[in-house]
C-alpha cells in the first residue's frame, strides 16, 4: 500500500488528487498540499541524506525553515535546483527528487567511514590539518574536501527561467501570516492602511495550520479562512503567500522572494511568468510576526533519523495527516511537547513515555496526558539512542537534583520516533537585521527582542509571547500601533481579541545538554549543529583552546555555518558555550543575524538586470559596424568597444601592428577617436574655472586654439589629461581620457557645486554627441583637404594646436590640428549621426595614399615612441607631474587644485620615481614585460629577499619605427640615471637587461607634427 503513514482523514491535503514523484529514482505518491518532506514521511521514508563531515545518516528533523538535514536536489539539467529544503518545498506532479551529499547511494555511503575516524576530525580540524605544506591546499586538500563535503550540484547550463523585481511602497509591512500577523493585518487593513502581508508557506495561518485549538469557538483553520476572506476584500491589502522576507534593512526596507511557480514544476509553465519575483518593499511601519522555532534537546546520538522536534511531529500530524512513526517517545523540558504526546495518542501512535527533565511537571496539558494514561517519566532524560539507518530505541536515566548528573539504572525503550522539545526560540532574525538587539529572558531561557528598532514592532511568538491568546492580542495591538503611526486611526482594541482555549506558560526548565555517563570527550556525540556535525564536545574544545567570544567559537567550530544558519542549534550552542566558559548565557550572547533569512537564488537577486543589455551596457561608436566589417578585433575600454587592431589574412598580431605603425609613419592612418571623453565647459567664468582645474594657464588661450592640460587631485597626483580647445570667449571643448570622462565630469561638478557655487560655469557631457575621426601621417593633409570644404589646410593658415570650422563630406565639422602620434595629424569632429558618412568619405579620399585603419594598440605604440603618457597606465595615482617631467605645465601665476601638495616634503623627494624610457639590451627585439619590477641587482632572482626595487615597467612594445623594442617605465631618480643598465627579474628565472633612456624615442625635436 502506498503512503502507509498517511492518516485516513484530517490535514490540509487534497486526497482526491494524487501527485506522482520520484525520490532517488523510486516512484512515490503524495497529494496537493504536501511538502516533499511530508510526502516522504507519508511513504515511510525518513533517511534523506548524509551529514556534511561524518556522513552519518540523517532524516527530517523539523517542518520548516529550521530543518538542518532535508536538503534535496530537485529536477534535472539546466533547471535543476540544489539544496532545496524538503520541509519547505511543495510537491508537484512529476517531481524528481534526489539526496545530496552521499555517494554512491544514500543507504550505502562510502564516506561514512569518516565517522569511524571522527576522533580525528574535531573542531578546527580544517585549520589544523590542512595547513602544511601550503602548496597542497589548492591542489589537493581543497578539491578533495569539496568533493567529499559538497552538497547539491549546481546546474551547468544557463538558467531557463525569468526572474522579476517589483517595487512597492506601503504603510504597514507585515511579515508572517500566523495568528499575530493576521490579527495585525486585520486591524491595520480595516483602518484603510496600505498593508502588505507575506508568509513563507503555501497558505496563510502559520503555526495555526499544525495546531489543534479553538479561536472564537472555531478550529484555527476556520478562523484563518474567515480572516483571509475579509483581508482579500480590503482594497489596500496585498496578501503574499509563498513569499519569504529574506532581508530587513534600514528605514523600513524589506526584501521579499515570492515563489511564483516553484510549486508548479521545475521551470515556469509559461515563459511570460517569472519563476520567482523579488519584492522590494519600502514601508512606513514594519510588523514582525515571524513566530518561534522550537529547539531540540541535546543528548548523545541525537541525530538519528526518527528524532524530530515535537512541534514538527504535531505539524505533520495535524497539517499533513502523516504520523512520522508508530511508537513514540516524547522528551521535553517544558509543557508544549505534552500537546504533541496528545496529538500522537489521538492519532493511533503509541506513546511509550513522556520523558520530562522537570521533577514535578504539572498543568492542564500534563493532566490530560496523565488522563490518557501515557507514562510520564518526570526528572528523567534521554541519555543515548540506538539504531542503524533509523531510530530503534532510546536509553533513559534519572537526573540528579541539579540536572548536572545522572543516577539509577538505564531504562531502554523501543521506539521509532523521538519528539523532543527544549523550549522555543523567537525568530528574531528580521528584528536583528537592521541592528535590533536582543536580551536574554530567564523564564523562557532564550533571546527575545530588546529595545525596538524605530518603526518596527515585533508581535507574538517572535516577541517571546508563545501563548495563542497572547499572539492574537499582540498582533491586534501591533496592527493598531503601526496603522496609527502611519496616520490611520487611533481606536482602542479593547474587547476585539477573539477568545481561545486556556493557555498557560510553557514552564520551562533550561537544560542545554543532557549530562553524559562518561567524560564528554569519551561519550557518544551530542550534536548541536546537526548540518555541520558540530557537537557539544567541539564547543568545550574551542573553549579549552582559548576561544572566549561566541563569534570566535562559531567560526572555530563552524557552528551555524550551514544553509540553515543555525536556526535549530545556535541558542543551544550558546548555552553550552556559557557552561564551558562558566558564564551566564546572557553574557555570552549569540552570533550576528544577517540576511538572507533563508537562501535565495542568484537569479532572484539579478532579476532581469543581466548581460550587456541591462547589467553592463556596451557602448559602440557610430562607425562600429565598419570596424567589424573590416575585421577589427575589439578591446574594452570602460564600457566602450574600441578597435584594437585590424588583422589581415595570415598576419600575426605583431605583423598587423608593424603594418599599421609603418603605414601611419610613412603615409596615413585613420583612427576612430570618438570614445574620447568630451565635456562642454561654458559660462562667463569658464576660463577661470579651467585655470583652477588644470595646472597650466587657460585665460590667455585665444579662441580657435588648443592646449594640452593635466589635472591633479588635491593630493597633487595626476588624475587625467587631455587637449582642450577654446571655442568662444566663454566656451571650451574639453577632452578627457576615454575611461576618465565620467569621473572628471563628476569631479568638476563637485567643485562647482560645493566650493565655488558663485562661479558661472555649466558643464555638459558631449562625448556621445560627436564622432571623432583622427587622420595621422605625412599624407594626412592631402586626405583632409580632399574631404573638407571651407578650410585652408596650409601650415601657416592652420597651424599646429588650432582648430577650424568647416564642412567635411558636406557635414558641419570642427577640424582640430592635433597629434597623439607625433605625425602631422588632424581630427575631424562631426555630429555623431554623420560619423559613418564622413568616415566613408575620408576612407575614399585616402585610398590613393594607402590609408590604413589602426586601433588602440597601434595608437599606444605611436604615442609611446613619442613618450606621451597614458593617464592610468603610466600613472597610477601616486605619480605627480614632476615625476613625469612636466614641470613646464605647472603655472606659477595662479593657484590650482593639487598645487599646494606639490611642495609637500614627499612630493619633492630626490629619489622619487621618474618617467623614463627603456631599451632592452639583452634581446633588443623582445619587449620587456609590462608591469615587470625593476632592480639594480643583476642577480635579483638568486639574491636574498627582499630585493630592493628601483621601479617598474608601465608600457612596453615592439617599435617597428625604431626597429627594436621600447618601454616606458617609472624608475627611482631615473632622470639622473640616463644610459645606466637596469634589470627586470622574470618569473621564469631569466633576468632581462635594459638601458635607461629618454622617454622620447622618435623625433625628439617634434618636427614631424609641425610641417
Amino acid at each position, binding site marked *: 500500500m502506498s503512503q502507509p503513514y498517511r492518516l485516513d482523514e484530517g490535514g490540509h491535503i487534497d486526497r482526491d488528487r494524487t501527485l506522482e514523484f520520484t525520490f532517488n529514482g523510486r516512484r512515490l505518491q503524495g497529494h496537493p498540499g504536501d511538502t516533499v518532506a511530508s510526502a516522504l514521511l507519508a511513504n515511510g521514508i525518513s533517511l534523506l541524506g548524509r551529514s556534511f563531515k561524518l556522513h552519518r545518516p540523517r532524516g527530517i528533523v523539523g517542518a520548516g525553515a529550521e530543518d538542518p538535514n532535508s536538503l534535496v536536489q530537485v529536477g534535472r539539467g539546466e533547471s535543476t535546483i540544489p539544496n532545496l529544503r524538503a520541509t519547505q518545498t511543495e510537491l508537484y506532479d512529476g517531481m524528481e527528487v534526489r539526496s545530496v551529499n552521499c555517494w554512491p547511494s544514500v543507504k550505502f555511503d562510502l564516506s561514512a567511514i569518516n565517522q569511524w575516524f571522527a576522533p580525528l576530525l574535531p573542531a578546527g580540524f580544517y585549520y589544523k590539518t590542512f595547513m602544511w605544506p601550503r602548496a597542497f591546499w589548492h591542489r589537493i586538500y581543497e578539491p578533495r574536501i569539496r568533493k567529499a563535503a559538497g552538497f547539491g550540484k549546481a546546474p551547468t547550463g544557463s538558467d531557463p527561467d525569468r526572474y522579476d523585481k517589483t517595487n512597492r511602497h506601503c504603510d504597514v509591512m507585515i511579515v508572517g501570516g500566523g495568528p499575530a500577523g493576521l490579527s495585525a493585518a486585520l486591524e491595520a487593513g480595516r483602518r484603510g492602511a496600505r498593508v502588505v502581508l507575506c508568509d513563507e508557506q503555501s497558505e496563510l495561518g502559520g503555526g495555526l495550520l499544525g495546531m489543534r485549538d479553538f479561536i472564537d469557538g472555531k478550529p484555527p483553520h476556520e478562523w484563518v479562512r474567515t480572516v483571509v476572506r475579509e483581508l482579500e476584500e480590503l482594497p489596500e491589502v496585498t496578501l503574499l503567500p509563498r513569499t519569504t522576507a529574506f532581508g530587513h534593512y*534600514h528605514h523600513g526596507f524589506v526584501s521579499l522572494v515570492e515563489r511564483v511557480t516553484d510549486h508548479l514544476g521545475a521551470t515556469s509553465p509559461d515563459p511570460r511568468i517569472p519563476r520567482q519575483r523579488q519584492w522590494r518593499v519600502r514601508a512606513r511601519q514594519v510588523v514582525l510576526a515571524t513566530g518561534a522555532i522550537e529547539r531540540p534537546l541535546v543528548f548523545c546520538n541525537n541525530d538519528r533519523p526518527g528524532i524530530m522536534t515535537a512541534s514538527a511531529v504535531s505539524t505533520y500530524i495535524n497539517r499533513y495527516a502523516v504520523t512520522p512513526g508508530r511508537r513514540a517517545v516524547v522528551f521535553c523540558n517544558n509543557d508544549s511537547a505534552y500537546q504533541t504526546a496528545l496529538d500522537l495518542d489521538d492519532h493511533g501512535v503509541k506513546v511509550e513515555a513522556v520523558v520530562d527533565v522537570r521533577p514535578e511537571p504539572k498543568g492542564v496539558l500534563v493532566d490530560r496526558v496523565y488522563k490518557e494514561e501515557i507514562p510520564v517519566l518526570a526528572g528523567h532524560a534521554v541519555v543515548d539512542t540506538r539504531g542503524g539507518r533509523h531510530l530503534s530505541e532510546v536509553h533513559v536515566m534519572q537526573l540528579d537534583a541539579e540536572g548536572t548528573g545522572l543516577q539509577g539504572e538505564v531504562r531502554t525503550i523501543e521506539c521509532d520516533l523521538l519528539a523532543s522539545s527544549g523550549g522555543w526560540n523567537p525568530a528574531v532574525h528580521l528584528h536583528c537585521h537592521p541592528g535590533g538587539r536582543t536580551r536574554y529572558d530567564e523564564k523562557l531561557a532564550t533571546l527575545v527582542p530588546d529595545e525596538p528598532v*524605530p518603526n518596527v514592532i515585533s508581535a507574538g511568538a517572535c516577541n517571546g509571547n508563545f501563548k495563542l491568546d497572547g499572539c492574537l492580542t499582540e498582533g491586534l495591538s501591533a496592527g493598531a500601533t503601526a496603522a496609527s503611526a502611519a496616520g490611520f486611526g487611533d481606536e482602542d482594541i479593547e474587547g476585539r481579541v477573539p477568545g481561545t482555549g486556556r493557555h498557560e506558560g510553557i514552564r520551562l526548565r533550561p537544560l542545554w545538554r543532557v549530562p553524559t555517563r562518561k567524560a564528554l570527550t569519551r561519550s557518544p556525540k551530542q550534536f548541536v549543529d546537526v548540518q555541520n556535525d558540530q557537537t557539544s564536545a567541539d564547543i568545550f574544545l574551542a573553549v579549552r583552546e582559548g576561544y572566549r567570544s561566541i563569534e570566535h567559537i562559531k567560526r572555530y567550530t563552524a557552528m551555524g555555518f550551514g544553509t540553515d544558519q543555525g536556526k535549530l542549534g545556535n541558542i543551544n550552542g550558546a548555552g553550552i558555550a556559557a557552561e564551558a566558559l562558566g558564564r551566564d548565557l546572557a553574557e555570552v550572547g549569540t552570533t550576528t543575524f544577517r540576511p538572507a533569512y533563508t537562501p535565495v537564488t542568484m537569479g532572484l537577486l539579478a532579476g532581469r538586470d543581466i548581460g550587456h543589455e541591462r547589467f553592463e551596457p556596451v557602448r559602440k561608436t557610430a562607425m562600429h559596424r565598419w570596424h567589424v566589417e573590416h575585421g577589427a578585433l575589439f578591446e574594452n575600454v570602460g564600457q566602450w568597444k574600441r578597435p584594437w587592431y585590424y588583422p589581415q589574412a595570415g598576419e600575426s598580431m605583431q605583423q598587423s601592428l608593424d603594418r599599421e605603425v609603418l603605414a601611419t609613419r610613412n603615409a596615413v592612418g585613420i583612427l576612430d577617436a570618438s570614445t574620447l571623453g568630451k565635456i562642454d565647459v561654458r559660462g562667463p567664468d569658464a576660463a577661470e574655472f579651467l585655470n583652477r582645474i588644470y595646472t597650466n594657464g587657460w585665460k590667455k588661450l585665444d579662441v580657435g586654439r588648443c592646449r594640452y592640460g593635466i589635472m591633479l587631485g588635491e593630493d597633487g597626483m595626476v588624475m587625467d589629461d587631455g587637449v582642450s580647445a577654446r571655442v568662444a570667449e566663454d566656451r571650451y571643448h574639453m577632452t578627457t581620457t576615454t575611461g576618465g570622462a565620467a569621473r572628471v565630469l563628476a569631479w568638476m561638478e*563637485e567643485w562647482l557645486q*560645493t566650493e565655488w557655487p558663485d562661479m558661472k560655469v555649466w558643464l555638459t557631457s558631449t562625448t556621445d554627441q560627436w564622432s571623432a575621426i583622427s587622420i595621422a601621417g605625412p599624407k594626412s593633409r592631402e586626405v583632409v583637404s580632399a574631404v573638407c570644404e571651407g578650410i585652408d589646410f596650409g601650415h601657416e593658415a592652420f597651424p599646429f594646436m588650432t582648430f577650424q570650422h568647416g564642412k567635411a563630406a558636406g557635414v558641419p565639422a570642427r577640424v582640430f590640428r592635433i597629434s597623439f602620434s607625433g605625425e602631422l595629424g588632424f581630427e575631424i569632429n562631426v555630429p555623431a549621426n554623420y560619423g559613418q558618412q564622413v568616415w566613408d568619405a575620408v576612407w575614399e579620399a585616402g585610398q590613393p595614399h594607402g590609408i590604413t585603419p589602426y586601433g588602440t594598440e597601434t595608437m599606444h605604440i605611436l604615442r609611446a615612441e613619442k613618450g606621451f603618457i597614458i593617464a592610468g597606465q603610466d600613472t597610477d595615482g601616486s605619480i605627480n607631474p614632476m615625476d613625469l617631467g612636466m614641470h613646464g605645465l605647472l603655472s606659477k601665476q595662479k593657484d590650482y587644485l593639487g598645487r599646494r601638495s606639490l611642495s609637500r616634503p614627499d612630493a619633492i623627494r630626490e629619489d622619487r620615481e621618474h618617467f623614463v624610457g627603456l631599451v632592452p639590451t639583452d634581446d633588443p627585439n623582445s619587449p620587456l614585460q609590462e608591469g615587470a619590477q625593476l632592480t639594480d641587482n643583476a642577480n635579483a632572482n638568486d639574491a636574498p629577499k627582499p630585493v630592493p626595487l628601483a621601479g617598474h615597467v608601465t608600457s612596453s612594445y615592439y617599435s617597428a619605427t625604431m626597429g627594436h623594442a621600447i618601454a616606458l617605465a617609472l624608475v627611482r631618480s631615473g632622470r639622473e640615471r640616463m644610459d645606466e643598465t637596469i634589470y627586470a627579474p622574470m618569473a621564469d628565472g631569466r633576468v632581462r637587461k635594459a638601458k635607461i633612456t629618454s622617454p622620447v624615442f622618435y623625433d625628439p625635436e617634434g618636427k614631424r607634427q609641425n610641417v
Partner: protein
Amino acid sequence: MLYIQCPWCGWRDESEFSYGHEAHIARPQDPDALSDAEWADYLFMRTNPRGTHYERWVHTAGCRRWFNAVRDTESYEFKAFYHIGEQPPGGRK
C-alpha cells in the same frame, strides 16, 4: 537600504545616491599660508564619530546635485538634509 531625502527631488532609495565625504570642510582660501601639517590636515584628516555625523551626498542617478545630511552613524537615522552652503538646522555641535 537607506531612505534619503534629496532637497531637490524628495525621498528616494539609497541606490540613487553616492556618498561623498564629511561635510563642512572648506578648501583653504590661501593654501600657501598653511604649514605642511595644516595642509595635510585639510587633505587627509576626517572625523569618524560614533553618533552625529555631518556628511555630503550626491544624487548621482537623479538631479546630480550635492547636498548635506546629518546622520547618526550608530543608528543610521538621518536627522536632517540641507543645501550646500547652509548650516544644519539648529547648528553644528
